[in-house]
């Protein structure tokens, strides 16, 4: 059984509870053992690295050290947390001085051996696309999905590893495996406005608006994401964006584990889809998936 | 076994299979032997072999190389003969190797088995033309424990260790003179143009001599310990020759004297050779 150190991150215990639930359900089904890191602290998110390089490395370091000690790959479903964990790992690798300072402030040593993977990679590469296919109960036929990767799981190029930076395919491959159709579009990795959600809302409206518009133009039924930050910008801000663009976008935004959950036979409430601002129920009903 | 040995050599000499035979004879006391050079079949009665036959008779081959020879070899000495053949010092067909089974030789000063005999893999000689006697090879492989231990020291400790050792050296060249592969017609140590080595005897220059000698015999030295035994001031030259053997094995997977057609490690190369340490 595949054992993975699990770093849920702050959002997954609040604004993105449904993501956490869906992730745990799906992993249970796939027999991936998610071992939640006890006493994890916030990764520092989008804030630490613009305030202090050391904070940005020290906060994730504690979780990295735990994973290293327990000899497990470490994963987070949240792209922001994943990015911070990976960057902390890479920055310490590149800059021994930083590593020394991190070790001083945390009082623990890090050997640089933790393997940081985004949850999509755990599923597709560690677990295997073929194995996922074997577990599918319901083909998601007729669903046109725009896979939206955002910034944090693709950039900089080092975090992307096996995938391509400019036109990543990992989620698209997953979508095809689930029987749905990944649409061809070029806004996969455009920025949604990320951390400006609270402080510079007008930027979020524009950037997320562009993404939603492009998804609509390219014929997507729904947008699939792997990050609670992207989700809240695309979903919770969507009514405002619709008003701004003077169209009713009505574009459901689902987490990739929710989409997987559907294919694995879970229903609307299991996956807590009622939590979304844009209710996917009518769409899923019309496609005969619910 | 002595009887067999004598008969065999007598036969070789009378049948003109060899012009010279090199073996051991008793020296001034029962704990001592010395090399015996026999031309006359009648003299073969002098020949003996016992646990005090410490010398590596391979040494004399290069000096008599124009003749057809028969030589008495312990298993370990055969490596020397093979190495000299590889170095084209004489032809294989001109040497009759008489291998004698050996349970190890003793240092007459201490009456203890030589260190090299402890885990000996060639008590029963390999590759000889004639083999006399039977012995059982050690099951344990050659141990480099002491070298490994020494390698762990800091470079400063090593430097101090060798400086102390070479302060003792009197540059008598006994180590070189007993070394079977130190057969250069004109040793670098005696040259004057250029003067590779100052003729002054002090620790620094002595060390230079030993460093160069060790480098020169790398991949050729069979770790026979002749130099170690010969040293009148007990410099542990074995610590160096053993290091050479270990490096040849570890760096290039090579063993001197194992194969008469081999290319020694420094006169060949492989395009995939490691270069991890090269900037």
């Amino acid at each position, binding site marked *: 059984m595949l054992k993975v150190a699990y770093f849920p991150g702050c959002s997954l215990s609040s604004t*993105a509870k449904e993501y956490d639930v869906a992730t745990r359900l799906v992993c249970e089904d796939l027999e991936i053992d998610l071992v939640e890191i006890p006493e994890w602290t916030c990764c520092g998110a989008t804030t630490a690295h613009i*305030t202090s390089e*050391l*904070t940005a490395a020290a906060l994730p370091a504690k979780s990295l050290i735990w994973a290293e000690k327990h000899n497990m790959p470490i994963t987070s479903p949240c792209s922001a947390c994943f990015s911070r964990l990976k960057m902390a790992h890479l920055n310490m690798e590149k800059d021994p001085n930083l590593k020394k300072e991190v070790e001083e402030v945390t*009082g623990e040593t890090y050997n640089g051996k933790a393997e940081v993977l985004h949850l999509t990679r755990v599923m597709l590469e560690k677990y295997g696309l073929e194995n996922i296919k074997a577990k599918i109960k319901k083909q998601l036929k007729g669903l046109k999905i725009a896979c939206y990767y955002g910034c944090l799981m693709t*950039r900089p190029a080092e975090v992307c590893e096996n995938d391509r930076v400019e036109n990543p395919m990992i989620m698209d491959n997953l979508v095809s495996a689930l029987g749905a159709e990944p649409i061809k579009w070029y806004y996969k990795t455009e920025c949604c406005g990320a951390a400006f959600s609270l402080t*510079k809302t007008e930027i979020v409206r524009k950037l997320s608006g562009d993404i939603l518009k492009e998804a609509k133009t390219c014929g997507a039924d729904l947008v699939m994401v792997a990050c609670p930050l992207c989700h809240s910008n695309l979903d919770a801000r969507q009514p405002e964006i619709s008003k701004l663009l003077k169209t009713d976008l009505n574009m459901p935004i689902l987490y990739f584990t929710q989409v997987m959950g559907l294919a694995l036979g879970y229903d609307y409430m299991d996956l807590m889809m009622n*939590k979304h601002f844009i209710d996917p129920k009518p769409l899923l009903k019309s496609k005969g998936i619910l | 076994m002595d009887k067999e040995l004598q008969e065999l050599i007598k036969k070789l000499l009378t049948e003109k299979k060899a012009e010279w035979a090199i073996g051991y004879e008793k020296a001034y006391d029962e704990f001592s032997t010395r090399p015996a050079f026999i031309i006359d079949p009648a003299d073969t009665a002098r020949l003996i072999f016992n646990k005090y036959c410490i010398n590596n008779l391979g040494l004399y081959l290069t000096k008599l190389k124009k003749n057809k020879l028969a030589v008495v070899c312990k298993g370990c000495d055969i490596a020397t003969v093979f190495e000299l053949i590889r170095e084209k010092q004489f032809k294989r067909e001109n040497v009759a190797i008489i291998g004698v089974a050996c349970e190890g030789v003793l240092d007459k000063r201490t009456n203890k088995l030589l260190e090299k005999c402890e885990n000996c893999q060639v008590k029963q000689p390999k590759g000889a033309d004639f083999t006399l006697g039977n012995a059982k090879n050690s099951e344990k492989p050659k141990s480099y424990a002491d070298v490994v231990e020494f390698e762990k020291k800091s470079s400063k400790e090593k430097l101090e260790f060798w400086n102390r050792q070479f302060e003792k050296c009197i540059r008598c060249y006994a180590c070189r003179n007993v070394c079977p592969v130190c057969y250069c017609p004109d040793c670098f140590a005696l040259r004057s143009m250029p003067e590779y080595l100052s003729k002054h005897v002090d620790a620094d220059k002595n060390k230079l001599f030993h460093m160069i000698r060790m480098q020169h015999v790398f991949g050729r030295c069979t770790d026979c310990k002749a130099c170690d035994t010969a040293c009148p001031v007990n410099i542990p030259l074995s610590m160096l020759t053993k290091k050479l053997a270990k490096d040849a094995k570890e760096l290039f997977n090579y063993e001197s004297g194992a194969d008469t057609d081999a290319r020694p490690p420094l006169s060949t190369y492989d395009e995939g050779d490691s270069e991890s340490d090269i900037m």
Partner: protein
Amino acid sequence: MKYELQLKNIKEGFRKDVERLSQQKISNCYQCGKCSAGCPVAYAMEYPPTMAMRMIQLGMHDRLMSANTSWFCVSCETCTTRCPREIDIAKVMDTLKIMAQAGKYKLSDNEIPIFDWIFLKSIELTGKIYEIGMIGAYNMLSLNPFKDVFPMGVKMILKGKISFIPHLIYNPIEMIKNIRMFKRIKKKDRERIYEKNA
């Protein structure tokens, strides 16, 4: 031309400070403009990234540090990924923000630092993020108490997306450790920014 370049500033430490703290070679920039071309927020910036790089090269800290450029950087790293001169531009932007917050050069826009301060304080005190307290504090401090309350905030609470109880590290020892760690970090950061270590 709006202003005259102060030649003495070129030689002063601004560029060196940025290069040291960001570990990026700013002098490498040859102004190709690829960062500005791909930047999703350049439209809102007073100076696009390309120009910001030039201003660092020329030591124009007064203008750059009082501009909104770095504060509008959303850290999407598009510029970093595509820069032909291999400059991590996003990191340079981070550095500008770090320097500004440390007060090393003048600072004008006070909006984001408040949010960051609250955010990190939340982590320092609880180990995790406490959304309601954080948003509340931010709205108060930025003198806009009802921002995002209607309808989004209310809906969020109704959907159970935001909780009123902070999520804490449960172990008090870990919590103290956490607070201590932050203290040590602050000390080291000041040393690094003001080069007290050297």
